[in-house]
C-alpha cells in the first residue's frame, strides 16, 4: 500500500447507513437465492417489488416520472408505473442471481450469444475489440457469463466501488458482485480515483495486443460526456469507449443482454460502429456515441423494464 493509498484508506468511512440497509437486505435474500428454485423467483420478486414501490413512494414517483419521460411515446409498452415495478423486480432477481452464484454449483441459465461473428471478425483484424455493453439489468453478470460460455476471454473495465458505496463495508459488500463476475473474466482493470491514466494505458496496451475489452455504458463516470436523444428523453454517456476505439483502431461493438425468461437470456452483439476517419476527432467520438445510443433504442423500446435507468 502506498502512502497515498494509506491516506485514502484512513479517510474512508467504515460504514454508511446505505451499507447497513444493503447488508440486511442481502441477508434476507440469501436464503431465498440458495433454497428457492429460480423458476419461483419471478413471482416472488414481483411481489417484493410491488411492496417496495408502495413503501418507497417518494423515490418511486421520481422513477415513474423518468419512465414516463423516456418511454411515454413508445407503442405497446406497459404503463410507466408498471415499468418501474417490473424494473425493480428485475433488480431483485439480479441480486438473487449474484447470491446464487456464491452457492456451490452456482447460478445456471441458458445464455445464447447472437452476433459472435462480429467478435471473430474484429479479432481477425488484430487491432483489438471493444464490447460496449448496454445498461440493461442483465448487462453485467449475464454478458460476462455469455461471452465466457462462448469461449471469449474478456478484459473488463470496472470501477473500484463498482458503482456502490466506497466505505469499507461497502467494499466488502461489493465483493458479492465482483467474485461471481471474476469467474467469467480474463482480467478486471479497476479504475479508482486518480489512476485513470494508468488504467487507460492498461486498456490501450491490451487492445494493441488484440485483446477483447468490455466497457459498460453507464452514465456516471467520464472526463468528457456526450448527451444524445434517447426515445423521449436524453442519455448522457462518457466518451471513453469511443475514444479508446479511435485511438487504437479497435473495433467497437455495441452489445446488449436481454432477458427472455428467468433461465433464458440472450447476449446480442451488434455490427461494428464506425465514424468518418477524416472528421475532427471530437466530432467522430460524438458521432460514435450518438450511433451507439440509436442502436440501443429499439431494445429499450421493446424491453423498457430491462433498461437499467438511474
Amino acid at each position, binding site marked *: 500500500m502506498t502512502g497515498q493509498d494509506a491516506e485514502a484508506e484512513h479517510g474512508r468511512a467504515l460504514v454508511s447507513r446505505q451499507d447497513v440497509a444493503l447488508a440486511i437486505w442481502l441477508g434476507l435474500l440469501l436464503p431465498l437465492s440458495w433454497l428457492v428454485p429460480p423458476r419461483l423467483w419471478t413471482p416472488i420478486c414481483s411481489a417484493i417489488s410491488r411492496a417496495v414501490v408502495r413503501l418507497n413512494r417518494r423515490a418511486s414517483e421520481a422513477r415513474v416520472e423518468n419512465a414516463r419521460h423516456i418511454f411515454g411515446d413508445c407503442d405497446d409498452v406497459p404503463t410507466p408505473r408498471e415499468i418501474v415495478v417490473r424494473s425493480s423486480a428485475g433488480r431483485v432477481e439480479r441480486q438473487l442471481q449474484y447470491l446464487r452464484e456464491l452457492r456451490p454449483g452456482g447460478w445456471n441459465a441458458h445464455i445464447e450469444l447472437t452476433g459472435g461473428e462480429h467478435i471473430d471478425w474484429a479479432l481477425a483484424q488484430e487491432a483489438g475489440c471493444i464490447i460496449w455493453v448496454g445498461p440493461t439489468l442483465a448487462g453485467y453478470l449475464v454478458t460476462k457469463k455469455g461471452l465466457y460460455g462462448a469461449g471469449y476471454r474478456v478484459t473488463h473495465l470496472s470501477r473500484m466501488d463498482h458503482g456502490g458505496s466506497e466505505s469499507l463495508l461497502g467494499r466488502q459488500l461489493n465483493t458479492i458482485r465482483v467474485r461471481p463476475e471474476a469467474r467469467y473474466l480474463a482480467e478486471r482493470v479497476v479504475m479508482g480515483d486518480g489512476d485513470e*491514466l494508468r488504467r487507460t494505458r492498461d486498456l490501450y496496451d491490451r487492445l494493441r495486443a488484440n485483446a477483447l475489452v468490455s466497457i459498460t455504458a453507464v452514465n456516471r463516470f*467520464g*472526463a468528457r460526456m456526450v448527451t444524445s436523444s434517447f426515445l423521449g428523453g436524453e442519455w448522457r454517456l462518457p466518451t471513453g469507449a469511443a*475514444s479508446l476505439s479511435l*485511438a487504437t483502431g479497435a473495433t467497437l461493438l455495441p452489445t446488449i443482454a436481454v432477458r427472455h425468461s428467468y433461465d433464458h437470456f440472450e447476449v446480442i452483439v451488434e455490427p461494428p460502429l464506425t465514424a468518418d476517419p477524416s472528421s475532427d*476527432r471530437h466530432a*467522430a467520438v460524438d458521432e460514435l456515441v450518438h450511433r451507439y445510443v440509436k442502436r440501443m433504442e429499439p431494445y429499450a423500446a421493446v424491453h423498457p423494464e430491462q433498461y437499467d435507468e438511474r
Partner: protein
Amino acid sequence: MAWVADELRALRLITSVELVDESTGLLGRGIGLDSMEVLQLVVAAEEEFDLTVDESQLKPEYFRTVGAFATFLQERMAAS
C-alpha cells in the same frame, strides 16, 4: 509548445495550430481532452523525445494548459 500544437493537430483534436497558444486549456472547457486523448499525447511525447512517463506521477496541473504540458515535457527531457 510548437510540438504540442502540432501533435494536437495530428490527433485531429484541433483543426489548426493557429487556434492554440500557451494559455489554451487542454482539459474541460479548453480543448476538452478525455483521458484517452491525454494518454495519446503522452505516448506521442514518449516516442518523439525518447522519454518514459509513469502515469502515476502525472498530475492534472501538467495538462491545465498547452504551455504547462510543454513545460512538463521540457523538465522531463532535462531530467533524463
